């Protein structure tokens, strides 16, 4: 079991705000509808009472159907890990951290050069994440661009299983045929399809297309994962001002409509399917035309959507610690920190965003390690101040007395670890010592930590027979005829 508990939550929406957005989203589904690209999905919705325009693929979902699905009890999602100690339970009251993923580019750790990511980069990212105390779930951080395109999807999962025992959250975007192969790989690692269903060690992120479109193959993939018991995150990302209203409430409503339609679909296809609301709602930068992943608004929408997701009975998966900076440094940290602070204190069930630069494009192992330290600091804020006789310690104050010293008191050591954030990268030495040690920057110290992490063996390595089996499955996929386009 992993995760941070939040003693001092910081919601951004009032109860009335939540009700108002919920009502608007439900009304929007009835009045405007969504475009649903999956034939199977439209059939299910029609049978359940929705109005379907087959030619335009637009489905209007009646309020009664949405309400019926939402009336079901909360469905927590357990992200089982190969190493059971690292299982993350998205139970609506703990915050978990996951890295950012699927970066096509990497800042080379040795040369600092920006170049296409490779299989080795992916393996290295998993191995560094193994050493991070505030990292709970692994999302393949980059693509193995040195693997053939037709099997890259499978190679990335294979490398992830081989290099970390954590739960694998996979932004596969898979269609149903690809999903079947990925599920088979998961089953090979879990010890069979039934084992995978009981303890899903992987989950899949399927994205919608803003505004208000659910891609067919993407949703068919979601049904296939759902049928195998693999949790699905429906990732909504309207960009305020471009693919959603500039007002955050408006874009959150668009995201809510997309998610609700996906949730209704997934639940119609598989009754108790574990579904997570994924979101990355952050503005378009109106001067450069880039997506402002590092914007403070990203932190606000993540919390708003967490509140709504909990109201809908689903855990949330939000962006956080994201940055638009091109290199790790001051900008990446001051963009990432307030946003990360917001979503941690807002109680997001799973936060993705550690370790990538340029708005989730470029892997930086140095940033990954720095972000882990930021989480440690925020974790302390989230833990707040515990007030009790034991912590007020008036008896102790009396005992030590006026002008005394608390250093040699047992009470100090008893509470030190929970009361104080203990830095691992932050340097609190005096200036002269820092100077004598070569004036190392935070990034320098992070590099040392990366090197140490890479020198460690992979914990809980896979059985060699499973490794061989995964290899054979990837080989087999390379020979298979592709019947559906690669996504």
């Amino acid at each position: 079991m992993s995760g941070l508990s939040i003693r001092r939550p910081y919601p951004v929406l009032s109860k009335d705000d939540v009700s108002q957005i919920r009502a608007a989203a439900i009304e929007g589904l009835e009045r405007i509808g969504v475009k649903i690209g999956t034939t199977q999905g439209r059939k299910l919705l029609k049978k359940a009472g929705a109005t379907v325009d087959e030619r335009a693929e637009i489905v209007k979902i009646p309020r009664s159907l949405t309400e019926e699905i939402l009336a079901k009890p909360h469905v927590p999602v357990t992200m089982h890990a190969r190493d059971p100690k690292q299982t993350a339970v998205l139970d609506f009251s703990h915050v978990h951290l996951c890295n950012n993923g699927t970066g096509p580019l990497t800042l080379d750790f040795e040369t600092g050069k920006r170049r296409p990511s490779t299989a080795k980069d992916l393996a290295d990212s998993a191995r560094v994440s193994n050493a991070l105390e505030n990292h709970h779930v692994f999302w393949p951080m980059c693509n193995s661009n040195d693997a053939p395109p037709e099997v890259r999807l499978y190679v990335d999962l294979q490398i992830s299983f081989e290099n970390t025992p954590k739960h694998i959250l996979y932004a596969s975007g898979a269609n149903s045929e690809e999903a079947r192969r990925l599920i088979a790989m998961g089953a090979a690692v879990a010890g069979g399809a039934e084992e995978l269903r009981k303890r899903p060690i992987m989950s899949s992120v399927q994205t919608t297309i803003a505004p208000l479109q659910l891609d067919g193959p993407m949703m068919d993939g979601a049904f296939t994962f759902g049928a195998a018991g693999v949790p699905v995150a429906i990732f909504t990302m309207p960009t305020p001002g471009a693919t959603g209203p500039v007002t955050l409430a408006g874009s959150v409503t668009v995201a809510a409509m997309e998610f609700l339609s996906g949730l209704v679909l997934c639940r119609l296809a598989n009754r108790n399917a574990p579904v997570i609301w994924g979101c990355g709602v952050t503005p378009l930068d109106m001067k450069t035309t880039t997506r402002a992943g590092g914007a403070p608004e990203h932190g606000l929408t993540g919390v708003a959507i967490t509140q709504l997701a909990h109201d809908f009975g689903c855990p949330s998966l939000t962006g956080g610690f994201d940055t638009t900076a091109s290199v790790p440094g001051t900008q990446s940290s001051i963009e990432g920190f307030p946003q990360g602070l917001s979503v941690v204190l807002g109680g997001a069930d799973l936060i993705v965003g550690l370790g990538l630069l340029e708005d989730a494009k470029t892997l930086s192992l140095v940033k990954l390690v720095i972000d882990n330290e930021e989480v440690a600091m925020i974790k302390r804020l989230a833990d707040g101040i515990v007030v009790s006789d034991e912590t007020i310690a008036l008896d102790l104050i009396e005992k030590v007395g006026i002008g005394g010293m608390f250093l040699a008191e047992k009470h100090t050591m008893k509470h030190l670890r929970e009361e104080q954030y203990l830095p691992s990268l932050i340097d609190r030495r005096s200036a002269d010592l820092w100077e004598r040690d070569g004036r190392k920057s935070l990034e320098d110290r992070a590099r040392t930590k990366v090197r140490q992490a890479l020198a460690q063996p992979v914990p809980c390595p896979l059985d060699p027979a499973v490794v061989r089996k995964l290899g054979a499955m990837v080989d087999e996929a390379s020979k298979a005829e592709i019947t559906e386009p690669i996504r």
Partner: protein
Amino acid sequence: MDDYVARLKKAVIEYDMENIAALAKEALDHGMDPLQGIEKGLALGIREVGQRFGAGELFLPELVMAAETMRTGVAVLEPLVPKGAGARETHKVVLATVQDDIHEIGKNLVATMLTANGFDVVDMGVNQPTDAILKKAQELHAEIVGVSALMTTSMPRMKELLAAAQTKGVRSKEKFVVGGAPVTEQYAKEIGSDGTAGDASGAVRLAQKLVGAKT
């Protein structure tokens, strides 16, 4: 009459989308030369907007709305420009997301920005096969063909497009630009394209350079 030309220019700068059509009609009723209205009015207006956006004075929505205003105005005036009166010089661009890829937000932004900067953009949409892209470019006599990919798995389609253009002998007639999150300068060079840009503003600069270099 000059007054109407100036008012059309001002309407574009102030993105007066609602009233531009009425203003253009009124200008024609008062005897304004439609070509003059387009070139000295609407086009100069959008050029100024483009420059001010480039200088960081204006925001993207202002640029987009100004372009929309211009388009509405052109739609009223252009049919009345006498044939052979020296047709407006526009640069045609064909854009598409390559086959096997359905991501298009970046491409759409590039289309918006190019349009706002006076390019004549035809956007083919997503998941477009190489042959269809080349055919469309040829049909429209496009000067620039721009393709995008978000997935590393669909990137090879860009290489395929460049190779097919080479084989078909259209490589010298059209300029090919590529873009999308996984595309680097180096990749753009390796596959023999005419360049890439990291964002839509960069795409405009690249396109301007390419058509400028051709004339």
